[in-house]
């Protein structure tokens, strides 16, 4: 049908000055008005205009969205970091963008020391520090090896890792097994109980889990995520339902293993007593989806968001391997008894892969219970998710939100939309103690620095200049 604006009833949206709206209201025509904000870096205006005008960018972002939402991750087993990510002795992986030892924060240092102690029982914390300082021990982001890690995200050569495979692309991603809450390595604790637990995970839990997984078909992870969203999880800071569904999926095979029943019981109760066990499965599942959307020329979609406790970093699909970083903020939220805001470390972890693929803060509407972390009401859960539709290019076909009439979660963060609207992604997170060894001290929300998005888009403008004009 040809354009019939002149004979249709007007349905008007407005952006800009008030008198335009007033004149419409005086004529009984009530417009919908947007809350426009000046971009935090107004000099981006020309590149933002070129992006918005380009059909090729729209197509590139559609392609990125398809990749992000069509991965089908399966848990296929467990392997050591040495095999899984080819991790040599003396190299340690960590969460977030690359960082030098000198700039690492307390919890990341603690976790690196802990991993060094785990790998060499003769080592002392002081000795480990020296080896990191003099460069004998190397550190590298998990993301650079197809892995992700929650909080400090530290991985060393002997640690067991979940192996997740995308049945569509055959691509794999990896993550360690979740250690539980409290004093744990990922929050920078490295006392004997921490190391002992890691050893137990390596010697008892990992082999039993591997056998259990292999006793049945590979475990499809996205159906668990989808169902967990309907059961009150947002799959980043609340994984109670996901963990329950997971143990249900493996329970029968687990108890049939020919292993000492005390070991099987210990594994069973380790998983059921740790609500976040599923987080370490959801994260590599998300990593597979995000990685499949990488390196699409011209795409402005965010394919990684990660923090190392010092810097918050993002990667864009259209700008290759480069990280764009800004200072990590200290999360705002609720602290465990005995801790104050001064004890909190700036945000850390690769778990923001959740938000990158459309869950976590983006699925807050699914998890009204945890808006209390930020003193909010269940309405905040809805409005947080709704605000994310303004900075994303699509809706997830599998992850649906009961409270929004089963609308798909917002997915595919468009850096251009973030820069334009000054609306940064909502990120749910745990809060680590600032001192190495303290562990988790709370949970809350954190704002990524807008600088990463501005810098990313500026770089995008440089690398895509030729591409944009050739399309």
């Amino acid at each position: 049908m040809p354009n019939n604006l002149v004979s249709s009833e007007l349905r008007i949206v407005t952006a800009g000055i008030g008198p335009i709206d007033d004149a419409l209201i005086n004529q009984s025509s009530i417009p919908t008005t947007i809350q426009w904000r000046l971009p935090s870096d107004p000099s981006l205006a020309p590149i933002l205009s070129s992006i918005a005008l380009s059909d090729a960018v729209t197509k590139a972002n559609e392609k990125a969205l398809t990749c992000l939402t069509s991965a089908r991750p399966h848990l296929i087993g467990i392997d050591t970091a040495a095999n899984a990510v080819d991790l040599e002795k003396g190299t340690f992986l960590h969460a977030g963008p690359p960082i030098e030892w000198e700039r690492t924060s307390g919890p990341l240092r603690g976790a690196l020391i802990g991993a060094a102690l785990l790998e060499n029982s003769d080592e002392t914390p002081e000795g480990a520090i020296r080896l990191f300082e003099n460069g004998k021990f190397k550190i590298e982001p998990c993301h650079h090896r197809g892995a992700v890690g929650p909080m400090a995200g530290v991985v060393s050569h002997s640690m067991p890792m979940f192996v997740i495979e995308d049945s569509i692309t055959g691509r794999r991603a990896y993550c360690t097994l979740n250690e539980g809450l409290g004093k744990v390595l990922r929050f920078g604790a490295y006392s004997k109980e921490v190391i002992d637990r890691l050893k137990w995970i390596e010697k008892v839990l990992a082999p039993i889990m591997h056998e259990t997984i292999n006793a049945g078909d590979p475990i499809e992870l996205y159906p668990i995520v989808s169902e967990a969203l309907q059961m009150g999880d947002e799959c980043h800071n609340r994984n109670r339902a996901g963990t329950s569904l997971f143990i249900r999926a493996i329970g029968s095979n687990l108890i049939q293993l020919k292993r000492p029943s005390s070991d099987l019981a210990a594994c069973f109760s380790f998983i059921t007593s740790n609500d976040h066990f599923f987080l370490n499965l959801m994260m590599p599942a998300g990593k597979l989806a995000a990685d499949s959307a990488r390196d699409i020329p011209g795409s402005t979609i965010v394919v990684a968001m990660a923090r190392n406790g010092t810097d918050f970093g993002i990667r864009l699909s259209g700008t290759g391997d480069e990280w764009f970083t800004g200072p990590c903020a200290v999360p705002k939220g609720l602290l465990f008894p005995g801790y104050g805001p001064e004890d909190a470390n700036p945000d850390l972890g690769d778990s923001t892969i959740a938000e990158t693929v459309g869950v976590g803060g983006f699925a807050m509407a699914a998890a009204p219970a945890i808006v209390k972390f930020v003193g909010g009401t269940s309405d905040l859960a809805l409005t947080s998710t709704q605000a994310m539709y303004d900075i994303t290019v699509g809706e997830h076909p599998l992850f649906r939100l009961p409270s929004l009439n089963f609308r798909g979660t917002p997915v595919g963060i468009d850096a251009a939309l973030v820069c334009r609207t000054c609306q940064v992604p909502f990120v749910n997170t745990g809060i680590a103690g600032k001192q190495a060894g303290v562990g988790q001290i709370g949970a809350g929300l954190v704002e990524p620095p807008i600088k990463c998005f501005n810098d990313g888009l500026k770089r995008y403008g440089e690398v895509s200049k030729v591409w944009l004009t050739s399309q």
Partner: protein
Amino acid sequence: MLKHLELRRDVYYDSVILFQASSQLRELDGIDECLVAMATELNIRLLDDLGFKSEEAGNTSTSDLIIAVQGESQEIISRAIQILDTNLESQSTSCSEPHGTQVHRSLGKAVCTANANLAIISLPGPHVTPEAADALREGANVMIFSDGVSIEEEQKLKALAASHDLLVMGPDCGTAQLGGIGLGFCNDLSPGQVSIIAASGTGAQHLSCLLDTSGIGISSIIGVGGRDMSDEIGGSSTLQALRMLDNDTATTHIALISKPPGKKTSRRINKIIRSLETPVTIGLIGDPGVDLTKVARKIATTQNLPFRKPRLKLSGAPATGGQLIGLFSGGTLASEAGQIITDTAGPVAGIDTFEIPTPQAIVDRKDNVILDLGDDRMTMGKPHPMIDGTLRRRIIEKLTLKPAPRLLLFDIILGFGSNPDPAGEIADALDGFLRSHPKARAIASVVGTSRDPQGLDQQWQTLTALGCDVYESNAEAASAIALDLLANNGKFEDAHA
């Protein structure tokens, strides 16, 4: 310090709700430490860390709630427990604001949610294009009120619109009317069958008001932006508007007004016009002998309708002259007047002849000048002079201080969006100017309809009471001035000495 530890069996609260309850308790005066948590292994250990004796709690399960409070007195602890109970109770019953409609931050998403067919943008120029492009991609037509959009961006936006069969009005589109609703600056017009496509807002307002007073109603006004008919843009929006209005059963006649178009664009538009079923009257303001009043008359004639001669009211003061200073809020009215006066009485300087057009520089000029006060160089981020008459008032106040009498020509534009009392806003300044210069004259062209919110008759009365000559037709006002200038050419040169 007293310690209180209690266990409540088989209750469940989400851990976050409990965190919050704990934090609230800790803030109470006299409460030193507290833990309200489900009795998980971790929390039991935490209890010991805080100096409570967890074994006192006996056998626990994770469905039990621990309440541990350390306070100054039993009284304080009891009050704290009461507050805790109230808080936990309110978690399940607290009611909150119903969640209203989502306020969007980007236009594309808002178009989508509202299923809108028109997006109106009045943002700073450099930030218009992303919003406009998104709105177009979501299927809405776009009106861009802002100026400061580059011509390259205009080209691309209009190409994008064309590929989706959508219309872009503007950039710098001040006036439109669709479905009886005035958009931007627009007059309260009676409904009818004539539709106007205009590359100029004030041109469209003047033409529609002239037709209105002749009893000829208006169906739609589509603004296309001042550059649309340049060869760079190629009349993209004009062509789309022509097609849309040709398909519109409510439109029986189309008026097209613009500055003279580029050569290529002119051929292109004429070709399309010949293919339309609806007759089109073209008025190219700036071509010799063309003005908006003549276009209005021509439309009436082709429709076989009577054209009422535009009203005027003269003060009766003798035509004593002086150099011309034209202070317009409407750009097209300024150029129409400039053209008419130049054709008859010789060249008139415009704003481009000023290095910096300050009010002082303007009143210091000794030649004939006509200024568009809505020009970017004059507004510099201030509201349009149709909304804010301060600049014009300042210039008139400065004229009052100059000894030379002047011929002062100005427009008053009424309608939605304009100043609520544009004549009143400059009345004191005009009064001062005319009283201090008995030989000066002030001539106004008033654009408006009798239904406009400012009151057409009131505006006329304000001006005539001050001793202004008032015209309904800007062209007639300009012609009268031209004759004055011609008659008094050179007479007042000495006054500037």
